[in-house]
């Protein structure tokens, strides 16, 4: 874990407030500067998952060939020595210094099957997940924060992708409990490495993901796509910071969300292209549909470009469904309510119909639609 952080003292780090740029728009709970943590003793095995984890301990249900797990307490070498640009704030500092349990995964062979990890917790924890993909190897991970996660959880994820390695990672947040999930993910990519992250966020009261990626090696590539759906008073907060440090690196970001009831979404991110990182190509897109009067969206897609030989662009939008699309669908005899549902499905399909989403496509699609139905029902009942 981060050397920079471990050399610091907590008293030197200022308390976080929502004036802090990285926590802007968040109504911070008082405990964020002093996380209350507990100890989970139970660990039920769940079907269909290779590994169950509760933030304190974990249990392997079925081995995956080519993948080895090491308990946090036995880790000799950290997955990541230190991040290059990520600032260490008081929250991250606590995650790094107070992690309650977890594991390191080493990928030593090409693994084509998804390695599935299911989280469960009744007490607040900081689970650590370190993934190290060795040279020329590829792997797929699926991390689920479903209904077994019943208390605040603050995962700390570190990914190290060695030369020419490849990692696909799905992070799914669907817990229907009124809890906070605050995730910090850092990835470092060596030459020609490729990382794809797919994110689903429909659960928790406050679901936040901060992702920092250093595209360190020449030719490395990062993709992230995600969907979120807000209902009730949910907040979906996604922050993605991509640092293009090597040459010929590429990144692509696409996140789409629908906000109903009094929910809110926050998307901020920065594409940083360092001096000398020539031939970089980077795109960033964030689209939001607001379904109800009380819903809101904040979108701040930043760029910092210190190099001339780049192709870089971003787009972001917030609004209701386009009237022209309604017109198109309704002129074919579809009533308005159905038209809206179809259009929302189509809005998400642009992300979830990609091949890389095959494993969760159907499940996610039905989750999103049932969320939409809930919002609609509440709206109709006044």
């Amino acid at each position: 874990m981060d050397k920079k952080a471990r050399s610091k003292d907590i008293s030197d780090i200022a308390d976080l407030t929502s004036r802090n740029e990285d926590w802007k728009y968040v109504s911070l709970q008082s405990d964020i500067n002093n996380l209350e943590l507990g100890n989970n003793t139970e660990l039920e095995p769940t079907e269909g998952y290779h590994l169950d984890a509760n933030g304190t301990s974990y249990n392997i249900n079925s081995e995956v060939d080519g993948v080895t797990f090491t308990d946090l307490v036995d880790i000799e070498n950290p997955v990541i020595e230190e991040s290059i640009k990520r600032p260490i704030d008081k929250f991250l500092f606590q995650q790094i210094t107070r992690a309650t349990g977890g594991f390191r995964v080493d990928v030593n062979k090409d693994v084509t099957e998804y390695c599935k990890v299911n989280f469960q917790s009744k007490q607040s924890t900081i689970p650590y997940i370190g993934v190290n993909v060795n040279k020329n190897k590829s792997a797929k991970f699926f991390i689920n924060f479903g209904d077994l996660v019943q208390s605040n959880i603050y995962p700390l994820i570190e990914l190290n992708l060695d030369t020419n390695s490849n990692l696909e990672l799905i992070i799914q947040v669907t817990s229907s409990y009124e809890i906070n999930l605050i995730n910090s993910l850092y990835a470092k990519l060596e030459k020609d490495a490729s990382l794809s992250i797919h994110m689903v966020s429909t659960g928790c009261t406050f679901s936040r993901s901060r992702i920092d990626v250093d595209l360190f090696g020449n030719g490395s590539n990062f993709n992230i796509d995600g969907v979120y759906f807000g209902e009730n008073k949910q907040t979906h907060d996604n922050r993605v910071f991509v640092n293009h440090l090597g040459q010929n690196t590429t990144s692509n970001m696409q996140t789409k969300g629908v906000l109903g009831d009094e929910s809110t979404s926050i998307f901020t991110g920065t594409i940083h292209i360092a001096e000398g990182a020539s031939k970089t190509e980077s795109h960033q897109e964030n689209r939001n549909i607001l379904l109800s009067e009380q819903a809101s969206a904040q979108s701040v897609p930043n760029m910092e470009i210190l190099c001339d030989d780049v192709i870089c662009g971003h787009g972001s939008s917030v609004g209701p469904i386009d009237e022209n699309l309604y017109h198109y669908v309704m002129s074919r005899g579809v009533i308005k309510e159905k038209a809206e549902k179809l259009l929302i499905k189509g809005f998400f399909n642009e992300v979830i119909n990609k091949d890389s989403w095959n494993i969760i496509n159907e499940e996610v699609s039905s989750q999103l639609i049932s969320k939409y139905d809930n919002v609609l029902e509440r709206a109709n009942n006044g």
Partner: protein
Amino acid sequence: MSMANIDIDLGKYSLGWSDPEKNVFKPEKGLNEDIIRKMSEIKEEPEWMLEYRLDAYKKFLKKPMPDWVAKEKLGSLDFDDIYYYIKPTEEQADSWDMVPDEIKETYEKLGIPQAERSYLAGVTAQYESEVVYHKNREDLEELGVLFCDMDTAVKEYPELVKEYFGSVIPSGDNKFAALNSAVWSGGSFIYVPKGVHIEDPLQAYFRINAENMGQFERTLILVDEGASVHYIEGCSAPVYTTDALHSAVVEIVVKASGTCRYTTIQNWSNDVFNLVTKRAQAYGNATMEWIDANIGSSLTVKYPSVYLMEPGAHGEVLSVAFANSGQHQDTGAKMVHLAPDTTSLITSKSISKGGGRGAYRGLVRVEEGAETAKSFVRCDALILDDNSRSDTYPYMEIEESTAEIGHEATVSKVGEDQLFYLMSRGLSEEEATSMIVAGFVEEFTKTLPMEYAMEFNKLIEINMIEAGAVG
């Protein structure tokens, strides 16, 4: 647009000026309540203005320095090493020889007459913190338009000034607005009565012309119902000064169905800190346009904003920034939608070169209840070499579900195919790049009166070819 018929005979300004009080005030560096009291006394201001200044001074002391922009440069700013008020005097010696050669050469290249060059370089003009007006506009008086410097307005139109001064930008808005509110001097006051359309742009030149001299002008423009005005501030030729802080406040109120366009061409010499607060309120069906070009200064921090107060109001910002060696242009726009059916458009074009840093920083905020508000933000940046930097920080805060908000941005270098096309027709690489850059900012240039547009294009060319290699 017809060519402005305002007579730019700058040599005449020194003739009509007399200053009976020139020995009364000995300027000193730094700021305290006494300086503010003396300044207000010399200006023969009413008591309320003195109170306003003193209150703002307290706010200035309390407000923290912004920590989100240009930390290093702002950190080097020494508030105690600045003259906050210098009474205009005729005693300044002509020191054309002291003007740096590169500035003289730029005047030469732009073909500016000698009289005007001396004026721009700050060596012959007679006013320092105060504004120079080009001529008595009798035609404007007939229409009932009030157009004078702010100090005169405080005395002659106290009711209007008292009602609106500080109403758009409160004195505690930010540290630099507080500073301006405490020590403001000069600036323009314009009132355009109901239904009056002013055909030609109104203009005023400002300059800083004493060493370590801060300039804190204050402008207030009131456009009454159905009226329209176009105001041009600044000039495209470089304005020479040393180590100065320029911190202006511009407040504009556009009443129902009124139109106001405010054009700025900022070309301070490359050591000025230009920290400006500009804000307008647009009422029902009114239109407010900020057209803002920043070429000079060491650091510019400026985000012209429009508060769209009533249904149908429309705001536009067209911002052009050229960040050359050693410069940081942190510019952008803010649009705050407070009422239904309001619309806004932000277009930003920035060019970074020779190690310069150009940043777009903007905010679109749609409050709940601003139904069917629409806003579109377009940011394009050109980076001309590997040492330069371009940043985009677009904030979008949307609380209304029927609002439609879009943002698109691109950053690129000059296209090789474009260069190839032009060079195959006999242009050098430098000429071709200049032409592409001029095309990149054409959206801005075409809003300018002819003589400004020509000078602006020439200036881009000089900026491109100076400081060595292009591309």
